[in-house]
């Protein structure tokens, strides 16, 4: 009679090990087996890589803006979405926005020459957003449970007192924040998340130009950002949200910082 520790290692054991479902007492046997069978170890290294690619490829899909048909109330009559009628080619071409006008919002692509330093600023904000919103284990350096410490620390590093605006009214709660750097020095990123796990980030660093600016908009492949300068700080709010939703959030941030 063999004990659980001594039973031969099966293919099922190896998969369970990969998926974190292997009982603790079987682990030493699996480790020994993999040490003795480098070809099997290589195969399972490939499987682990697959697992990572699965996350890297598909995780960002959760942040895609929802069509109206998938937002409550669900009882509305069905309407065929634009993407459904025309496919991605057209939908994708719509993602580069040129807008503005009535509300005074100024629209820009990422790197338009007229954007000058702002183009670089928003590109940095978006790059930082892309890197950290998909992070599962360490999305932030300091969590919202230490908010006081977080804002004091980040404020000190960027040289201006900082506050984390409340966005609960819009369903977003602070996750935490981290210190970053760009060409000009320190920058800070605050991350918020809603009940569905959708994340938005608020990126801030000292502004080069003391003048305040109106909101500007930039969009690229589903990621959208509003950015502005206020009180010596340059701000960017970035998310994979509908433009209208994101602009309401940006206004809320602005309001919260100016009351």
């Amino acid at each position, binding site marked *: 009679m063999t004990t659980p520790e001594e039973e031969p290692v099966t*293919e*099922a054991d190896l*998969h*369970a090990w990969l*998926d974190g*479902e292997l009982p603790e007492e079987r682990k030493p046997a699996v480790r020994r087996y993999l040490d003795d069978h480098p070809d099997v170890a290589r*195969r399972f290294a*490939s*499987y682990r890589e*697959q*697992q990572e*690619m*699965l*996350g*890297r*490829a*598909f*995780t*960002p*899909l*959760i*942040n*895609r803006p*929802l*069509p109206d*048909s*998938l*937002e*409550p*109330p*669900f009882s509305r009559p*069905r309407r065929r*979405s634009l*993407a*459904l009628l025309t*496919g*991605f*080619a057209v939908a*994708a071409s719509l993602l580069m926005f040129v807008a503005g006008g009535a509300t005074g919002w100024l629209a820009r692509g990422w790197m338009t020459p007229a954007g000058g330093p702002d183009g670089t600023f928003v590109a940095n904000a978006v*790059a930082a957003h*892309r*890197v950290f919103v998909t992070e599962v284990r360490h999305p932030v350096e300091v969590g919202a449970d230490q908010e006081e410490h977080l804002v004091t620390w980040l404020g000190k590093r960027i040289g201006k007192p900082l506050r984390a605006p409340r966005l609960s009214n819009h369903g977003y709660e602070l996750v935490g924040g981290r210190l970053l750097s760009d060409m000009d020095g320190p920058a800070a990123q605050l991350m918020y998340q809603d*009940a*569905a*796990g*959708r994340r938005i980030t608020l990126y801030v660093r000292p502004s080069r130009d003391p003048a305040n600016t109106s909101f500007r908009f930039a969009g690229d*492949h*589903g*990621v959208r950002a509003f950015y502005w300068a206020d009180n010596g700080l340059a701000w960017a709010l970035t998310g*994979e949200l509908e433009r209208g939703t994101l602009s309401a959030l940006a206004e809320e941030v602005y309001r919260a910082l100016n009351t």
Partner: protein
Amino acid sequence: MPADEIDERAIAAHVPRLRRYAAALVGNMADADDLVQDCVEKALTSRRSLRDPSRLGGWLMSILHNLHVSGLRWRRRRGHELSVERFADDVALSAPPADRVAVRDFVRAFGQLSEEHRRILLLTGLEGMSYREVAEVLDVPIGTVMSRLARARERLRVLLEGGEEQVLRRIK
């Protein structure tokens, strides 16, 4: 909360996750949106059958699964191969630039798997469900989950590392 209170908001909170799963499974956003919309409608009309509201996520996934298997209107769309290419490009655009080529290749290979294999890999790898939860969603024994997962992983490995010849062997 009691089952009567499973309202639109509670369901809506799961929609982005269901939609991500559906898109990765069927390989395009439009079909995924149709599938999720059907799922939401079905969930709303049969919400009283959910006994334990804490299991809402798994329950919705089961509904989505059954709708997908019974294959209703989302199957109308043509040209799966074409849409896999397009979907791979689309998904790659959401990835950081340095990852884009790898992501596109991965999504293309993933799209060549059978639906059964895509499903098992997504539920365990992307949704992070335990074998037991997957068994409940798919309504199969745990042993089937494990053997199917093993076959799916090996097939995907061959698709990613092997190339054309293995693709043909898969079809045989």
